[in-house]
């Protein structure tokens, strides 16, 4: 095995292995998070960008590894570097998590509590591989992991029911408030004199959806067609006849092309 290098292409190298028994040493590569697009959740002076993280590694594990450099505020995993699309849920629910499955290797953003942690990490010198799985916070693998997942997937229904009830009560309240608000605004002109048409009033406006719009255009077209006269004038007759022959010719031409294509595909060799 090659001697562990300290840095590669601007990344710092951190040797790790799964546990004491394992012989395979993996390397995490990390550097200071510094990109043009600013993201408020990843302040550049406190965020570390880590790559080459195997799938089984979890937040807790990284938090523990980097805590020797300074207090870690939070850890995010992403499939690819960039601005994360899923904002952290405002309200954490025990039962209804927005699962964001990351397949295979992933990258992580480690956010320290203060900038010194980042500086420490950049300078840190690793003597020997760190352990990913320890006695206190083990990482399960294989059968064990799946068993655990299985057990975790069975929720406590009474707790869940309670949470649902709360959520729904809350939701209903919000809905009610909104409705009250709209009824209040119904028919009331705003400062510019515009009146917002809602679906609540005596004459509810048609919802502005794509479906309704296409429906309207089709209806209009139909109406227009009704008023038109077909095959009334002589020239129309002639025209339609000509059109008919042209159509036949066109189809004939198309068929010929098809035949050529079929021939190329050796479609006429029966045996």
């Amino acid at each position: 095995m090659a001697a562990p290098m300290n840095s590669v292409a601007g990344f710092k190298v951190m040797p790790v292995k799964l546990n004491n028994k394992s012989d395979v040493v993996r390397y995490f590569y990390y550097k200071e998070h510094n990109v043009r697009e600013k993201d408020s959740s990843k302040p550049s002076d406190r965020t570390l960008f880590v790559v080459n993280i195997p799938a089984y590694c979890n937040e807790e594990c990284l938090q523990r590894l980097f805590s020797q450099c300074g207090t870690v505020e939070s850890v995010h995993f992403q499939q690819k570097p960039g601005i994360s699309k899923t904002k952290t849920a405002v309200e954490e629910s025990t039962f209804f998590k927005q699962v964001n499955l990351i397949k295979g290797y992933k990258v992580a953003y480690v956010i320290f509590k203060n900038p010194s942690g980042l500086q420490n990490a950049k300078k840190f010198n690793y003597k020997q591989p760190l352990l990913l799985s320890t006695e206190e916070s083990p990482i399960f693998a294989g059968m064990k992991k799946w068993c655990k997942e299985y057990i975790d997937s069975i929720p406590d229904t009474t707790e869940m029911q309670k949470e649902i009830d709360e959520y729904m009560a809350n939701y209903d309240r919000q809905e009610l408030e909104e409705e009250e608000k709209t009824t209040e605004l119904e028919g009331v002109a705003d400062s510019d004199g515009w009146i917002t048409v809602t679906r609540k009033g005596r004459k509810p406006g048609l919802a502005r959806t794509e479906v309704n719009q296409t429906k309207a255009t089709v209806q209009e077209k139909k109406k227009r067609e009704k008023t038109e006269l077909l095959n009334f004038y002589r020239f129309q007759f002639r025209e339609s006849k000509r059109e008919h022959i042209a159509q036949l010719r066109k189809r004939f031409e198309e068929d010929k092309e098809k035949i050529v294509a079929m021939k190329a595909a050796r479609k006429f060799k029966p045996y």
Partner: protein
Amino acid sequence: MKRPVQEDNRASSETSEDSDDGDQIEKGHVETVPPTKRSKLSKAELYKPPTNVELTTLKETSALYESSLFRMQISELIAEVTPKSKKNSSLEKVLHSLYGTLDKLPSGKQYDLTDQSWLPDGIEVPIIQEPCNGKGMFFFEKPAAVKVIGSYLLETCTKPNMHVDIVLQIPKVCLQRKDYLNFVYHRKRALYLACIAHQLKNVDYLENIKYSYMNGDYFKPILILKPSGKIGKSYVIRVHTCLPESFCKLSICHPDRNNVRVDWFTGRQGEPNTPTPHYNNSIAIDLFMEQHLRHLFSEMEDFTGMREGIVLLKVWLHQRQLNKGVGGFTGFIMSMLVSYLLSLKRLNKLMSSYQVLRNTLYFLANSDWTRRGISLCKHEDDEPITADYHKHYDVIFIDTSGYVNLCADVSRLAYLQVKHEAELSLKYMESISAVDSFQALFMTKVPFTRKFDHIFHVSKLSHLQSCCKQFDVEDSVSDHGGDFVTAVLPSIVEILEKGTGKRIKLFGMHQPPHKEWSVNEKPPHWKDLTHLTFGLLLDPEYSMRVLDMGPPADSQEAADFRQFWGNKAELRRFQDASICEAVVWPCMTMADKRLVCNQIIVHLLKLHAGIPPGCITYLGGHLDSLLRQPQDEKHKPAKKSRKELSGTGDEENLAVIHAFDSLNKKLRGLKDLPLSIASIQGTSPVFRYAQVFPPNVLHKPASRGLRLQGYIQCPLPHTPSQWVPVLKVICTMERSGKWPDDLLAIQRIKAAFHIRLSQMLHKEYKVVTAATDKFVDAFVDGFVFRIHVAYPREVVLLKQETTPQGLLQLRDTTQSLELEKETISLPKLTSALHSIHQSNPTFSGTVRLAKRWVSSHLLYSYLKEEAIELLVAHLFLNSAPFTVPGSPVVGFLRFLHLLANHDWINNPLIVNISDNYKAGDHDDILEKFKCDRSQHPAMFISTPLYKLSSPWTTPDPSTQVLQRLILLARESLQLLEQQMSDCYEQQQDYKQIFRPPVGVYDVIIHLKSKYLSKCDHAIDYVRGNVIEKSQKGEDNRKILPVVNFDPAEKYLQELQ
């Protein structure tokens, strides 16, 4: 008015052919296709005033052919199968020199007929001479006339195996007055050919000379001359002989006459001479050979439609293998039939080839030559009338002379098959578009193994000889010159048909054809025949009946019945209190029921023909073992009845459906739900009868070593757990204003429903349930059902997005598609496939075999289950050119064929589930598909639900996987068909095609990873589904060792 135009086209096309023979693209409709590729007609061209010629062509196309594309297809096909130019100069040269040689042949000496020692070494007589004695003198003289006859002259030659027929007229001096008796003529004929063969042996323009039997007739050998050089690859010359018209009186050939004396043939004196119709016919046909040709030639004059129509009909016959083998329906008979129809005025000379074809097929389908024979001859008094023929032949088609039955050698079975195929073809021509029917009519082969539902081989044919007496067919044996197989077959078939009754729609028979043999070998004997192959086309309505009811016990027919069935006949009392004779075939399972015909046939052949069961190889259930549940339980002391173990999954599947029904009833019975249930539908494959191994009923008490959390059992890392699949059920709730308009809120409501359902099911029916936010698991009647509550509007909500202008749009997202598939399309697919299975019980077996095959080649994760199901459904919905598969095996064979031979690149597969396409949809799909082929998946399956997208085949299979699938399918099909036709000799290992070539995977790392990800698949199976309080024992699937896999490695493979 139309004629000149067509002539014109043809003439111009021919001239162009002459000018550049090599260029294929140029041929055919020359007036329209310029050599360079022209993309689109310009506007000016499109609207230019039409010429008269053009107008008539356009009109003619719509009048005489269905569509212009179909017309072009036909003309392409004809160009493909007929020789390029009318006269082939090198062939003409060979014929000329042959003529020269024959004309200069020296006369031979006179010998006694039985003395054949004078024949030069290396030449054998191509005829079987039993009994050996015969009166007559043989004397060789050069032929009185040499003429070219047959399809070459009529320009109806079709590839492959094109041949030029030459007929030599045996000169009168060589023949004696009584030569028509006792096979003397036949032997002279053979000797004559032997002499010719000797003389031609060393000429340089012929590569080799062989003997062959004309249409498998043991007494009509012919010479096959292969010209040397390039021409020999495409043409062979067949040499026949014929008789001068003054050979004998025509009345000799009357079917009632006897020309093979019994005392000569058997050596016994004093027995009455019985008519020898076949023998007489074979003489008569040599008398009238030339007349037939002249007749056809005159009919075909200025009638191109007939010439082309005959070519089409010949291709049609060839693809169905009807013209081959012994007693085939030859192209000659077909040509005569067309001329017959012309004489009937069913055809007229203005008709196109397509109309000739269609009318001929129509006539074939709607006439019955076994009851009312047809005749080309206008009757005069002394000629035999058709009634005379009906006494002696099965199939009757009398020629112009009135003395020849052209169909004398055509067996009843062969004729019935032709009739059946004609009916089928007509049906398809009417039901599907012309362009598609072209494919079914001419381009698809209908081999024996794929045509018939069940097949059986009878080997060791010597048993048949002994039963000739039993069937009282000894007259017929002498008529056939000792060929007992041909003589006895009609009787055997009759017995089998009577025995199987309504179960079978069509019997097919196939004899292995005799090969051509070299001139220094003895002719093949009928005793050399190794086996006969029979095919059965089952009638799904009756084929599985286990009971045959006979006449009442006290009636007169009862004795006949008992005699017919032997010891199988028994007296039974029926529900209507009648006591009748009956035959019952013991069947434990569905698999046994499918093979009732097997039992019947083996029994009857043993009883009546003395053929021991060991000589019969019945193919119909030979792949059943693959559908049996793995029998791990054997080494456990579990007391399961034998029946449960040996079934092929049909019974288990039924049990699941019953359990589902009971669950359905329970759910419907729940009174206090806030919203009522709109529909309950299962979506697991088992509800489509498409699960390879339907789950077993689980009724054992709790097992050791599993952890319990509450009443829910949980797996432990080191304890293997039994495989218990969950069966997905979608329970759609009614729409109501009470549902919120917010996705998160809907999620909560659904979870609340799950909890509620679980509680209520437990309370009301004591069903063990477990609820989570996504589903409820319910343990009903030994099966675990996973119920998902669905709300149709959720899909719409997922699709909704608002544009910056404030317009509400519906756009597909991955999430919405997923949900739509789970809750809307899958239930629909399930009910559609369910109904297919209801009308065709073989659907289940076919799908499961197909799935088994795909998964055994480790490609299961690349081809979705639903895609396989749709492919199989296609076979049942559009079975052209076959009938609907009547056994899982034949369905599976056709599945392989479809997979291997469908043109996936250029054509979508349109599966018309529940007949929901509208008129224009078909063309629409094709056009859209052609337009942007690259955007569609490699395998495109269109269904009425998804006309222009193929959700079941996206994103997999990729092009590479599809290629591999096609390759595997082709090889598997070839091997399996080979095995099926060879199995009369030895046991075959039919599981061979289900063994993946693992060797390949071990070498190539990429493929190995596929293998592993498949294992991963299996792990997932164990994981998700081990539940409930009552399991015991090991996995019954081979997933156990996989559990040790390192997850890191697993994920690595996922990455690759």
